[in-house]
């Protein structure tokens, strides 16, 4: 293994789930690896690591992003919200709905599902099933067959 060139180490300051965190890491570190390995926030899951599955989705300054293809270095000074930091009445309802509708089995996809669903419900509070399916198409689930997930999100829409 080649050592990283010394210049590759960088110091970052991020606001993670409301707390300021200072970290030294390598320039090549993804936001996903930083959250999991350096900050031990293992709720953010790494699946495909090339942007396709959505398991790593987190909020960056309130907007959903793929943590696996977002460099930690690019997030310096910004606010990150992971599944551990999601809170509020909408999130409470969504969590309860996921349980009620059996919207998870193994739970691998669930953190990304919740983050994407919160973003969807905030942008489109009245989304119908078609819109929910389209907007959630970037989050893959190997277990549930999606019906419960769509139902859970639907039950949190304003209709």
């Amino acid at each position: 293994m080649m050592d990283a060139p010394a210049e590759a180490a960088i110091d970052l300051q991020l606001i993670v789930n409301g707390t300021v965190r200072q970290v030294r890491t390598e320039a090549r570190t993804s936001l996903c690896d930083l959250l999991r390995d350096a900050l031990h926030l293992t709720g953010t899951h790494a699946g495909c690591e090339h942007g396709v599955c959505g398991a790593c989705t987190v909020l960056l300054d309130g907007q959903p992003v793929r943590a696996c293809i977002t460099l930690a270095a690019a997030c310096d000074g910004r606010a990150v919200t992971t599944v551990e930091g999601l809170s509020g009445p909408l999130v409470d309802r969504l969590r309860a709905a996921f349980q009620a509708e059996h919207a998870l089995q193994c739970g691998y996809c669930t953190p990304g599902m919740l983050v994407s669903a919160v973003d969807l419900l905030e942008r489109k509070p009245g989304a119908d099933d078609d819109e929910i399916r389209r907007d959630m198409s970037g989050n893959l689930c190997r277990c549930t067959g999606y019906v419960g997930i769509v139902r859970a999100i639907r039950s949190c829409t304003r209709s």
Partner: protein
Amino acid sequence: MKPVPFRYQRAASLEEAVAALAGAGADDDVRVIAGGQSLGPMLNLRLVRPTLLVDIHRIEGLRAIDVLPDRGVRIGACVTHAMLEDLPSGDRLPPGLADVLRHVAGGIAYRAIRCRGTIGGSLAHADPAADWPSALAALGATIELAGPAGRRSVAASAFCLGLFETAIEPGEVVAAVVLPGSVIRRWGHRKHCRKVGEFAHAMAICIDRGGEALEAWLGATGGAPVAIALDRGALAGTAGSEAQRRALLRERIAAALPDSIATGDAYARHLHAQMAAEAVNDILANR
């Protein structure tokens, strides 16, 4: 699934980015990174192994959308797909143009990708299946480039040269996309994906500005966007007959498609003809 080690530099201005590219050492493999939504996967898969990344994503001047005196619009290279998807309705942009931009942007990948991926990055990456190359060619856009020798402009129709190949010269950065303000009367944009948000297998866009010629382009043909010769007169000749219109489009598309598809792949040919027919139908349906 981890990139090779590299150095990282965040540019505060376009000038700084151009200087960083010019100042890289002879042994450096330097790359611009914008949203990282194409470069990120390539880094993780080690398809690219740069020694230095120059991050341009936060350069203020590259994130602006400015309406021009002719009611055209200048879109900074680091404007994200999501910013265009969310373009406010109102009188700032000509309505037709805003509709096309919102529609094309909103159809790219997934919201989480759209929140970081940029219009400039899409163009520079020049994936044949990407949405902006054919759409911007059909919209008559001009691409502004900044480099060590100063600024220059290239027509979007001449910007993508082939598979991941563009008119960008070494050391140059895409600075902006400029769209003309002349009124879009009708438009159609269709793409075929096996799964929502996935890269398209066929794509067509048709723009009607009221003149005799229509701007009709195909995307996802495996190389640069392909122009289809189409005018109002020819379409009028097939008025009332869907079958005749399809036959005309098939003939025009066959004449335009790259050889590999025109002579080989019947399924791809069918998909392209179908997308073109639907885009033209959207125009005729007069929306």
